[in-house]
């Protein structure tokens, strides 16, 4: 089983919701939390753990054996990223930062051995045991790399290869195809938002994505006292999404966020909100006894 926490706008509290839910749900399920915000992964900081079991993610990059290349230009023609440029005589050159590693060039090259296996390090994945009985998988894009998709795919693959009953994914901000890649395969999408006009605007985008993906979607309103929850409810209603939790702006949450200790472990009113939400998720997934 898989569920996703996303939200469109950045900084609405996706990771806060994800890690607290994970701590609670790990009591009922063998759980893996996948931090697929590969451009800005933070779940480990919020959980107070150092990333462990680093594995490099290398992306294929063509290397040309110019003694074999017939300068037919086919590789350059099929490259959708225009990462291969050719000189006047057809000699191909690679612009490494544009290369997506898709291997289209290798597939069309008519001369065996003219395109050799090269690779470039684009990031890392990590598998970290947390103090709370679940495993955290993290993808981290290398600074300067443009494409997060291959890393999202790789981190998710690494998570899938672990032994679990429930995988929770925490996505990046945004609503593009790397977010849909992270969400893909989920039975439930939890959209975390804030009731500001910005949060509301971006919630609609993530609700659109949920609808396109045919996903049951719930909305969590964070910092609910800082705006108009009614507007969120109206938009959520339009997409058949239910508001399942309202979290007030809270110094305790800020403190827990900063200290790397999930708030759900504390005896404070905010913790109860996360416990109840976890209960609701567990009921939805049929995990209660």
């Amino acid at each position, binding site marked *: 089983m898989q569920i996703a926490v996303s939200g469109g706008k950045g900084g609405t509290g996706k990771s806060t919701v994800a890690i607290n839910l994970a701590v609670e749900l790990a009591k009922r399920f063998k759980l893996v939390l996948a931090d697929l915000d590969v451009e*800005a992964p*933070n779940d480990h900081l919020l959980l107070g753990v150092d990333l462990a079991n680093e594995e490099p993610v290398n992306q294929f990059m063509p290397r040309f054996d110019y003694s074999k290349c017939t300068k037919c230009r086919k590789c350059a023609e099929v490259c959708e990223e225009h990462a291969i440029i050719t000189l006047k005589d057809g000699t191909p050159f690679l612009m490494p930062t544009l290369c997506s590693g898709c291997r289209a060039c290798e597939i069309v090259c008519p001369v065996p051995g003219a395109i050799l296996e090269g690779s470039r390090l684009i990031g890392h994945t990590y598998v970290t045991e947390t103090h709370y009985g679940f495993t955290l998988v993290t993808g981290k894009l290398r600074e300067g790399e443009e494409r997060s998709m291959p890393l999202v795919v790789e981190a998710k*693959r690494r998570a899938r290869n672990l032994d679990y009953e429930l995988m929770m994914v925490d996505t990046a901000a945004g609503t*593009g195809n790397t977010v849909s890649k992270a969400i893909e395969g989920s039975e439930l999408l939890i959209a975390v938002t804030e009731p500001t*006009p910005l949060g509301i605007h971006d919630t609609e985008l993530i609700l659109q994505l949920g609808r396109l993906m045919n996903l049951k979607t719930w909305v969590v309103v964070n910092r609910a006292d800082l705006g108009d929850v009614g507007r969120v409810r109206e938009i959520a209603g339009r997409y058949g999404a239910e508001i399942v939790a309202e979290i007030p702006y809270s110094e305790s949450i800020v403190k827990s966020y*900063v200290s790397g200790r999930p708030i759900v472990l504390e005896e404070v009113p905010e913790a109860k909100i996360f416990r109840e939400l976890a209960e609701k998720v567990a009921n939805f997934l049929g995990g209660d006894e």
Partner: protein
Amino acid sequence: MQVAIASGKGGVGKSTITASLLYLLKDRYKLIAVDADAEAPNLGLLLGVEEWEEEREHFGAKVARINSESCVRCGICYERCPYECIYMDDEGNYVVNELTCEGCNVCGLVCPVPGTITLEQVRSGVIRRATTKYGFPIISAQLDVGKPESGKLVTEEKEWAKKLMDELNLEHMIVDSAAGIGCQVIASLGGADVAILIAEPTPASLSDVQRAYKVVQHFREPAYLIINKADLNPGFTKLREWAEAEGIPVIGEVPYDRAIPKSMAMLKPVVEVFPESPASKALKEIADVIAEEILG
């Protein structure tokens, strides 16, 4: 001059601060604003833009489609798709998930039946232009949900903005970038003269701004730092220490201030509606520093 505003982490106040700085600098310079967060564009909202004067659709994205009539169900496309975007539907047909396809055409190249898999150009989103009620123009993009290549939209936005700068004889482009450090942020920072980083004093924001700074360093741009919600976490000194160690000038600290969400709800920059609030006072000082030290 081109100034890019980035943070790595989302929700630390990029657009809020950008809107206020635009408001404070609009009478001193001829500006153009670019909202370079195509996946969650918000700057237009914060500047009270209600109607766009011009909208251009973009068809830069490509996605693969499989014709199930001629498909022989060999499964080669499914095996070879580098991003695992092909699946089998309930009727046993191979289908491309258009919400995750990167448009690389590997499936089309490996398919043994000619014409079965085609790469089709689809709409990736729109780029819009408006004149804000404050007089300066804004360019904003909106990626269609689930589409690839938001970075290309950002590049297009900046091209449009550059043309407008030439036509209207504008001085400075202020680019409000997306969260993260990927294609959109690289497109925002590429070609900028100066980067202004925004961070809050939390471990997560520090970690992400450090990553954004590494991208800034790739482009060898001078960087400045604004600390937002500066009083959020008094014991946390690492952000300042990092800036000092890297030699990044801290050009101001904005306190946590409820006037900011209030102003947001009014769809106006905080400096316009609550000019005497603590955040507004700090922002005014920052605008002066930017005018003096960066824009000249």
